[in-house]
């Protein structure tokens, strides 16, 4: 099934494989839990790629209270500072993945209905998902956790920081606006997902996708007006005013109309991109980001004029018809036409090397080193409305930083440390040093289990045999991140 799973990654990047997603079992944290108080840290002798104001050779970054306190070439170490000597190493702002499905407990798709705005990814965050740690090890510090793309209007979404080892309540990115997933094209019209015996769901065409969105927003607008009328009557002292019936499906859409919730719209083809921009204009809301947007390069001027961001893949193509015109020049072409562009992962594995994926835009379309780096730092932060907090190395910003052993826009660069809020959440040396202990612990547990197996009479009720231990097959990792 291994090849099949590779295929699934591509095919379902994307749609949904109902029931293919498993719950990740809680795992001991490979990194020690960070202490409560953020330490004072001085990173020195590093090549600092600030993203906002160029490259500083032999530079230092001072971190205090989780924030960047000083940046430059002559930063003095406070007495109590931990020193990270980063000679020969590179520091960049933490990578921001604008399209992720990690840290989700179970399926990311409520695929039964065409408007599933009622559900919220924030309700099912799983802080024990090992992919959080793996993506941290790839330099990702912030991720936009999206609902799947089975619905024209999908579920509510949330931006998180990858604070591995912290409870779910500590994952959300404080102050980041929540979002909602939209999806256009093959996935919401269920082109590639016919289930034997299942009833076909509306919409089944791109025409129907538009009408599904228009119908939902027509309702939302009426609903919004009903509440406004009610509030007005209440304010006027009308004691007979009756509140409209609360509609959990329409509430998030009203927030979209009010600009309190971002729309992240999965899309591929040029026509459907323009369709959504027209509908948004009609109802007076903004599409915050177009996700995947593999034909964005064809209508880059229109996207730029709408002030909409584009978050795309580096070089995925041909996994379905609407991805057949995908080109690796997409990010560069849109950038050159004035679109704010980010490169995203949509996949737990792809997220571990977004720095490399960004680098490809230098080769395909000629972005500069700085422009390429922005694709995974500043630009996704702008798209998520968090650029005042993170994404550049400037005084006052959150100390979300990554240290690489080489230029991060190279296939030879390896993450050495990843920090969030001034705390080290991933440390390669510490990870390697801890492996022997983890192996030992695993062996002890396995031996214990085997022993218990040999003496069935001592077995406690409900104890499981090793072969019954739930173990997700390969498809798990393949599909979970790939919706």
């Amino acid at each position, binding site marked *: 099934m291994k090849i099949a799973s590779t295929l699934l990654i591509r095919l379902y990047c994307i749609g949904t494989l109902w029931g293919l997603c498993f719950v990740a079992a809680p795992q001991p944290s490979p990194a020690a839990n960070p202490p409560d108080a953020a330490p004072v840290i001085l990173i020195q002798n590093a090549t600092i790629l600030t993203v906002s104001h160029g490259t500083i050779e032999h530079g230092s970054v001072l971190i205090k209270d989780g924030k960047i306190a000083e940046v430059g070439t002559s930063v003095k170490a406070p007495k109590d500072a931990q020193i990270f000597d980063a000679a020969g190493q590179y520091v960049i702002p933490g990578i921001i993945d604008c399209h992720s499905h990690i840290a989700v407990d179970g399926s990311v798709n409520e695929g039964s209905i065409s408007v599933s705005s009622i559900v919220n990814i924030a309700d099912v965050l799983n802080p024990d998902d090992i992919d959080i740690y793996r993506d941290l090890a790839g330099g990702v510090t912030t991720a936009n956790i999206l609902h799947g793309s089975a619905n024209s209007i999908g579920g509510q979404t949330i931006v998180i920081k990858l604070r591995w080892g912290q409870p779910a309540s500590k994952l959300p990115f404080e102050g980041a606006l929540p979002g909602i997933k939209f999806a256009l094209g093959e996935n919401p019209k269920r082109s590639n997902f016919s289930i034997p015996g299942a009833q076909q769901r509306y919409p089944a065409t791109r025409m129907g996708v538009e009408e599904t969105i228009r119908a939902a927003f027509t309702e939302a607008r009426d609903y919004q007006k009903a509440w406004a009328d009610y509030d007005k009557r209440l304010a006027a002292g009308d004691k007979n005013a009756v509140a409209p019936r609360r509609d959990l499906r329409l509430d998030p859409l009203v927030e979209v109309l009010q600009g309190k919730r971002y729309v992240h719209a999965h899309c591929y083809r040029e026509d459907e991109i323009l369709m959504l921009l027209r509908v948004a204009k009609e109802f007076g809301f903004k599409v915050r980001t177009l996700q995947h947007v593999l034909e964005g390069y064809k209508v880059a*001027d229109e996207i730029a004029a709408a002030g909409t961001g584009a978050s795309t893949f580096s070089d995925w193509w041909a*996994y379905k018809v609407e991805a057949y015109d995908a080109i690796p020049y997409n990010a560069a*072409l849109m950038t050159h036409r004035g679109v704010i562009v980010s490169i995203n992962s949509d996949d737990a594995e792809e997220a571990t090397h977004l720095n490399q994926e960004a680098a490809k835009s230098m080769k395909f379309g000629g972005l500069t080193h700085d422009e390429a780096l922005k694709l995974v730092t500043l630009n996704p932060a702008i798209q998520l409305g968090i650029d005042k907090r993170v994404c550049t190395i400037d005084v006052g910003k959150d100390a979300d930083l990554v240290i690489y052993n080489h230029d991060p826009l190279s*296939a*030879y660069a390896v993450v050495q440390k990843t920090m969030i809020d001034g705390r080290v959440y991933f440390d390669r040396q510490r*990870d390697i040093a801890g492996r022997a202990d983890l192996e030992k612990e695993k062996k002890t547990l396995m031996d214990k289990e085997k022993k218990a197996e040999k003496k069935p009479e001592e077995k406690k009720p409900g104890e499981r045999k090793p072969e019954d231990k739930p*173990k*997700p097959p390969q498809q798990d990792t393949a599909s979970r991140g790939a919706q």
Partner: protein
Amino acid sequence: MKSTRIVRLVSVAAGACAFGFTILTQAQTPTTYALTHAKIFTLAGAPIEDGTLVIRDGKIAALGTTVEVPSGAKVIDAKGLQIYPGLFDPLTQMGLSEISAVNATVDSSETGAYNPDVVAATAVFPSSEHIPVTRAAGITEVVVAAGTGGFDFSGSRGVIGGQASAIHLAGWTINEMLIKKTVAMVLTWPEIQTRSFDFATFSRKDKPFAEAKQDYDKQVNELTDYLDRARHYAQAMGHGGPSDFQRDVKLEALAPVVRGQLSLLVFADRARDIRNAIEYCDKQKLKMILAGGEEAYKVKDLLRSKGIPVILRPTLSLPPEEDDPYDRLLSQPAELAKAGVKFAFGSFDNSFARRLGQQAANAVAYGLPYDEALKAVTIYPAEIFGVADQVGTLEAGKVANLIVTNGDPLELTTEVKLLFIKGQNTSLDNRHLRLYEKYLNRPKAAN
């Protein structure tokens, strides 16, 4: 910004003209080339500084620092550039699958469990858009494996999937593309599967271990029976003419396998499955190449001692187990190389084939010596599939499959400037470049 880009484009185009492209005028293109003043990485010895490489009639005629340029040769000054053997992707469905979600465009896997007689080369579509796209990444030849991509709707890829073919990534017909029609027989090793996905009900199915083991044993027994029949058949083939026995094309296709002349390309990933497969092939006296090998590191000594080479699935993959080190597949190549296991990197794909260099470079980042990485995308796959006499290194007499680059061919930003396949200066144009240029020139929208 924009003007710089246009200048670059123009200069690239001009450069291309100066180098004298190609396909459209193939009939008139020269048959003798001299690439001069290049740094030549032969991979058969030390790099040659300021060297000349002469291509004649599709072959490498000569290379070195004192090579004379033959009269009539098309001379290309490659000063500041580097020459490498073209990259070799040893596991693809190139030409067998165009758009993986559209069944009508996919010919990767037959239905049924035993299809030793189907041959990948038969269904390779020479006009596939994947071929020029892959070529632009410096890949000049690939192995196309039948029975490895896609799956039928019972979720099965069968047991014996068919014959893998080695092809050049250029040619008007498959005949022109062929390096070798059959380089291996694909076998998907039966796994002990306690959990599977049932496409009939579109749901997950759990199976008790004992039951899964029973299924596994049944499949292995069937395989043994099948190979026994092939062995008997092969014996019969050696005695008397075709009139003496009823011809069976499936068993006939397996004859070179049971005789130990043709390698089995065995797909297995988990250590238990790899061990079972090795033990089985050993007992059956079958030549084995391992494909996949996610947990090959756990059986590295066995692989080395049996001399079994591995086609590794992409290093850029998540670890199979939740509690594996995060860099399990990235660091595995270094570990295998250290243990003396021969391996090559494979894309196991079409649209991701162009990440072959990236896969190799990432293994270097996690400890694999650079030279080994380079060989694992050139000469090692050629050796593993028995075509090293033709491709894989730059040596006089070999087929002239080579690339001229502005740097390390494994690095993300390196550009392939020229690409030769069978001595032809082959176009780097492709669907993506065409779409790029078309929309680069779209007039600004009125809005």
